[in-house]
């Protein structure tokens, strides 16, 4: 494992994330359309949308501050960084030691805070409403996610994502009750964090129930393109994270070409299945009232704490 090839691999992972993220979102939308018995947009619809938005000029409110204009770039950078840290194609990443699982939660939080601040910058009713709700979702989702990572960290005795994935990948195929709890909690958190039904609806506009869309209502043009792309990257990062934690088979430790030939198709296959399942969950559930969302996330939080306790009670090495 030479440094040059692992740097190259890291770069490849970055490029894969940038390209695959819109595809994944497109795939989920396609599945949703099929399951809802509608005709689906093409898989590449998201690229066209990005291209269109980059072409358009930015329409900016007169009282926007420079924070409002900087935020899309910062949010995009956070999400790019997050998707490079998550081990997808290999666990031997030169970037790995820069940020561990706790720092990854921190990156998501940083992006969330900037989104919320930008949402409040213009001072419209919808923007502040969205920011307030986003922070409400965040304050419960963030610790739940952290607790999921803690469970896996206790199993692998490390908070480094690479080590976690390596340890989980090498274990024998057996059901770990703690991981089952953690998996359910993680799924619930991912739904909430990615603005999915039942907590938020990614396709909603002009509705009093919107959260994420309400915050970014004032964005247009390239700013909106970056934010949409960042949202796609977030979904991609969360999906890869779930796959790496709970279905880690197929992520090689080394770097060589052969390993890549295994890693890429298995990643694509797992993402396709995961995307379909996400669309299925969204199709069969109804959106919750906003004040049911804390209950939903509270359940996720308790499940993730239970996962830790279960690990300590049943699985801890004596």
């Amino acid at each position, binding site marked *: 494992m030479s440094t040059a090839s692992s740097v190259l691999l890291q770069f490849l992972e970055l490029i894969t994330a940038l390209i695959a993220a819109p595809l994944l979102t497109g795939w989920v939308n396609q599945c949703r359309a099929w399951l809802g018995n509608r005709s689906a947009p093409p898989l590449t619809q998201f690229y066209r949308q990005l291209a269109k938005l*980059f072409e358009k*000029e*930015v*329409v*900016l*409110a*007169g*009282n926007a*501050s420079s924070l409002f204009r900087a935020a899309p*770039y*910062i949010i*995009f*950078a*956070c999400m*790019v*960084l997050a998707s490079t840290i998550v081990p997808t194609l290999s666990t031997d990443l030169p*970037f790995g*030691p*820069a*940020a561990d699982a*706790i*720092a990854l939660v*921190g990156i998501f*939080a940083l992006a969330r*805070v900037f989104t919320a*601040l930008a949402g*409040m*910058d*213009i*001072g*419209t*009713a919808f923007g*502040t*409403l969205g*920011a307030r*709700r986003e*922070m*409400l979702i*965040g*304050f*419960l989702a963030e*610790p739940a996610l*952290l*607790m999921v990572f*803690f469970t896996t*960290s206790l199993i692998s005795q*490390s*908070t*480094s994502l690479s080590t976690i994935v390596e340890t989980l990948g090498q274990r024998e195929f057996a059901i770990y009750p703690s991981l089952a709890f953690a998996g359910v909690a993680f799924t619930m958190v991912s739904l909430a964090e990615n603005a999915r039904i039942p907590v938020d609806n990614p396709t909603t506009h002009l509705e009093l129930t919107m959260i994420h869309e309400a915050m970014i*209502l*004032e964005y*247009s043009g*390239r700013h909106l393109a*970056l934010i949409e792309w960042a949202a796609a990257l977030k979904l991609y990062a969360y999906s890869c994270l779930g796959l790496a934690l709970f279905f880690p088979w197929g992520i090689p430790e080394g770097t060589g070409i052969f390993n890549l030939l295994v890693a890429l198709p298995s990643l694509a296959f797992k993402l396709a299945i995961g995307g379909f399942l996400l669309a299925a969950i969204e199709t069969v559930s109804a959106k919750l009232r906003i*004040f049911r969302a*804390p209950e939903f996330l509270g359940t996720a*939080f308790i499940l993730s704490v239970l996962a830790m*306790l279960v690990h*300590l009670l049943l699985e*801890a090495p004596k």
Partner: protein
Amino acid sequence: MANWPGLLSIDWMLSAVCAWLAIGIAAIIAPRNFRYIARTLYPAGALVGLLLAIAAFAALSETPEVVVLPLGLPDLPFHMRLDSLSALFLMLLGGSSAGISIFSAGYLRKAEGTAPGVQCLQYHVFLASMALVLLADDAYAFMVAWESMALSSFFLVTSDHRIPEIRRAGYLYLLIAHVGAISILLCFGVLQGGGHEGIAGYTFANMRNAEHSAFWASAAFALALFGFGAKAGLLPLHVWLPEAHPAAPSPVSAMMSGVMLKTAIYGVLRVAFDLLHQPLWWWGVAVLALGLVTALFGVIFSAVQSDMKRLLAYSSIENIGLLFVGIGLALTFQSFGMTALAALALTSVLYHCLNHAAFKSLLFLVTGSVLHATHTRSLGKLGGLIHHMPWVAWLGLLGVLSSAGLPPFNGFVSEWLLLQAFLFTPGLPHGYINMMIPLAAAAVALTAALAGYVMVKFFAVIFLGQPREASLHHAHDAGWLERAGLVWLAALCAALGLFPVFVIEKLDAVTRPLLGAGIYQAAGAAAREHGWLFLAPISPDRASYAPVVFLLSIVLIVAATYFIVRRFWHMRVRITGAWDCGFPMQTARMQDTAEGFGQPLRQVFEPFYRMTRELPSSFDKKPVYRVVVEDHFWYWLYLPVAKLAEFGARMVAFLQQGRISIYLLYSFVTLVVLLFLIRG
């Protein structure tokens, strides 16, 4: 610096104390000469602070030095001692006070409260007494310094003593400070009871050598926890904090929150790890539980405040809670002989002390600038200030992000270390504690996430959005002296966030004498493999974090994205009105107020608050909505205690009949009783 012929490091510290006292005395020579005080004395005080910080930094890893001053009681002269723990907190005091004093130089206004000279004296006595608290090496010197600190800060809090609320806040502060001081005094009394004859037992050196039974050690610890907890704002002795912080002038709030609360942490560390060196496991568990309750309580209340300084005061309670969580964890580990983990937990505590001093002082100073620019502390009357006060806003943003514990800023580092300490707990030889730890870790994670909520509210309501009052358009940015103070503290935040490895290496010098282990040393060569970039407290395989790489990659991605968008597309912008779903009648009053932003949390955590709501009916001519959120403790604990005290006083007053014959009867009865006793 320490090698100056004939001068020890501690002499430098004491000369800084003298310099501060001299500045204070120089101020009352001309108490009304505004320019002389603001432009000469405060900057001089800042310089002394800076020199103190440098000297303390140099003294961090030196052997302890002891000096006996020719002052004090006949058999108990003032003992002074400078060891690494004192040096660290002196560094914190010097570093923060440098920023706060230079800010004060620009902040001071004519005709506000006390005469500027008197205030300058009180402020510098406050600084000097805090330094003496950290240097004291016997109970008497400690108590003298501790009481001067309490008194000088009381006078500073009540600067605007013509306002009744401020007098009330000052009274509450003084009361709780003294209840705490009595407890600390009793604690020293217990500590000296170890065989040393006479008053010499009150030196810390003799306390260290004394042997205590488990019961008396626990009693001393409990008294210390109560006494220092009262100063720190530990539940249920926190009530003075949200009253006193808003009442005091902003630099004083910054000083109290950033530095004075840390002297209480210093006291707990001094007693628990230095004077008593054999902690019992349940001390740790009790402190951990108290810390968690305090942290959650603080952050939940912080979220619903609409006064910006009260919000920060509650946030200080939260941070104190987190510090006690770390102390509890360190005590637990130490009691089971796991020194390396105890060192990890204690390092997170010390690191968080430095962090909190930097970012909370910064945020309090920011509120000071906002207060001077807008004349209001109420969040409901602010908004949009980022356009009028860009310096304050952007530096405040740095403090807010640090305080919210977001990477790559400083709050995240200590939070990260604390969570790492939690993660390595399994292995405690006590099943139930092992089970409790995940719950505690979950509570810490929840607190940290809620802190993000609070900080978004603080920043967004003050600086973003539309101005909620027309007068805000005339708000002005801070002057250059104020800016210098803010920049200094913001730079401290950034440095602490970006270069944690240097700081931890220095903190090793503090944890090693106390616990016998330091994490930088314990990690060994493996952790140092990556050099100063990577923070890896146990080993790089277990956990690592590199803030500089983190920041650089974000900056790099932002720059790359910007240039790619510019190169391949365009940078066209059209400025118009806000879109807001096409709703045309937007006004500033339609934004979330502070109450509105806190509303979800009021609903989620409803049982924790004592709320009185007045809802308007649909027929009201002038509809009024009012919500008052109060603290249960005030009604459950403080008012009953106050009533009890009043009842006791009334019972005693029964003796005072106001008639001379009754008093003569008392004297006669006393005389007879005494004669009866002496006879036997």
